[in-house]
């Protein structure tokens, strides 16, 4: 892995900086575009608005690739997200199971807390669109917690994470391309 990224790092530092700055600028611009669209759109859940927002966010994501790769290379990302055991590649006997009862209990506590928050949202009858957004957000956090601690992904090699998660994320994101259609079909239905 490292050799491959090293070959990318042949760029002069200054160029790196400029490139990253430009990319970040573009990414930021697209995020601003998406946000302003969200703000301005009267009805956020219309095809046009969704389409525009999604496309802007996707483009922002694409522009983030280079800065992220740079961050990875310079070790910024590694320090932030990598598992504790990951640096110890050369260890003779890799530690395979980590975590204490206390840790798992606190994770369980978190999951229960999030579930209670979700149920509470249902109790106070939050408007549907907001409710959906919050629920999906909370569910993703819960899923991440389960994946990371219960399913132990945090203590595996990062390469496993890199292999599994993008596959899933790409496919699920792709499935969301269906949605402009569902909104349209709603409008085109001839028998109600």
């Amino acid at each position: 892995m490292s050799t491959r990224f090293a070959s990318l790092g042949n760029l002069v530092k200054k160029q790196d900086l400029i490139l990253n700055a430009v990319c970040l600028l573009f990414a930021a611009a697209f995020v601003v575009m998406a946000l302003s669209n969200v703000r301005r759109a009267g009805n956020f859940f219309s095809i046009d608005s969704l389409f525009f927002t999604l496309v802007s966010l996707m483009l922002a994501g694409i522009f983030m690739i280079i800065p992220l790769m740079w961050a990875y290379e310079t070790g910024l990302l590694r320090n932030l997200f990598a598992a504790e055991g990951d640096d110890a590649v050369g260890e003779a006997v890799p530690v395979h199971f980590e975590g204490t009862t206390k840790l798992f209990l606190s994770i369980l506590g978190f999951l229960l807390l999030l579930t209670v928050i979700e149920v509470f949202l249902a109790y106070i009858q939050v408007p549907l669109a907001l409710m959906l957004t919050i629920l999906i957000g909370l569910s993703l956090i819960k899923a991440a917690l389960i994946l990371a601690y219960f399913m132990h992904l945090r203590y595996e090699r990062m390469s496993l994470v890199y292999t599994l998660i993008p596959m899933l994320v790409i496919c699920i994101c792709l499935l969301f391309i269906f949605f402009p259609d569902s909104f349209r079909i709603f409008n085109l239905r001839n028998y109600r």
Partner: protein
Amino acid sequence: MTTHAHTAERLTADDWSGGTFPYHIGHKKLGMWLFIVSDALTFSALLIGYSYVRVSSDQWATPFAFSPSILFSTSMTLCLLASSFTMVMAVAASARRDRRKARRWIGATMLGGLTFLALHIYEWLHLIEEGLRPFGLAQGSAFAKEWTERWPQASPLFGATFFAITGLHMFHVLTGVIYLGYIALRIRRKTHEDVEISGLYWHFVDLVWMFVFPLIYLLSVDFHPAVH
């Protein structure tokens, strides 16, 4: 042969040049992870299909009363979460090579799973008795009448999505319980990895429920309930 492989291992500059496990996990665990990815996509497709038909309908029935329906399903969620915790404890015990404890914790997990199944089946039977069907509503029941009054334009797909998605999930829970039972029975012959893999599957089932529960139940809450 073992020392030989170890020599090669030490000489290997990077994990990917053969003769070793690149992720430092065995076949079965990698296989289970891949299966989980693929199964997650089956559920995603179903949940997205559900969202699709819901969005493209004029009206979607939101029949679940906060009390008791949602509280009931919340207790089901708690069952699953608790069983996930006991499963982690089982894996931890197995990592310490404490098989007796591991078996007990697996037993507790199965108990959680079975409670979930029992509650779920009770809920299904209750709903069917009231008049909810995969194809819509049982004709002529008081429930159907009330439902039609409340949601005159409602898509009949409520029952279809509900039974299809929770049914498939229930099938997974059932398989999981059987699988765990098999592991618990033969725990003396199973490696730590085997226990861990069964744990992966169990947590995955839990993870799916973390999406099914909000999308199917919490987004169908109603203050003026039709389902009691």
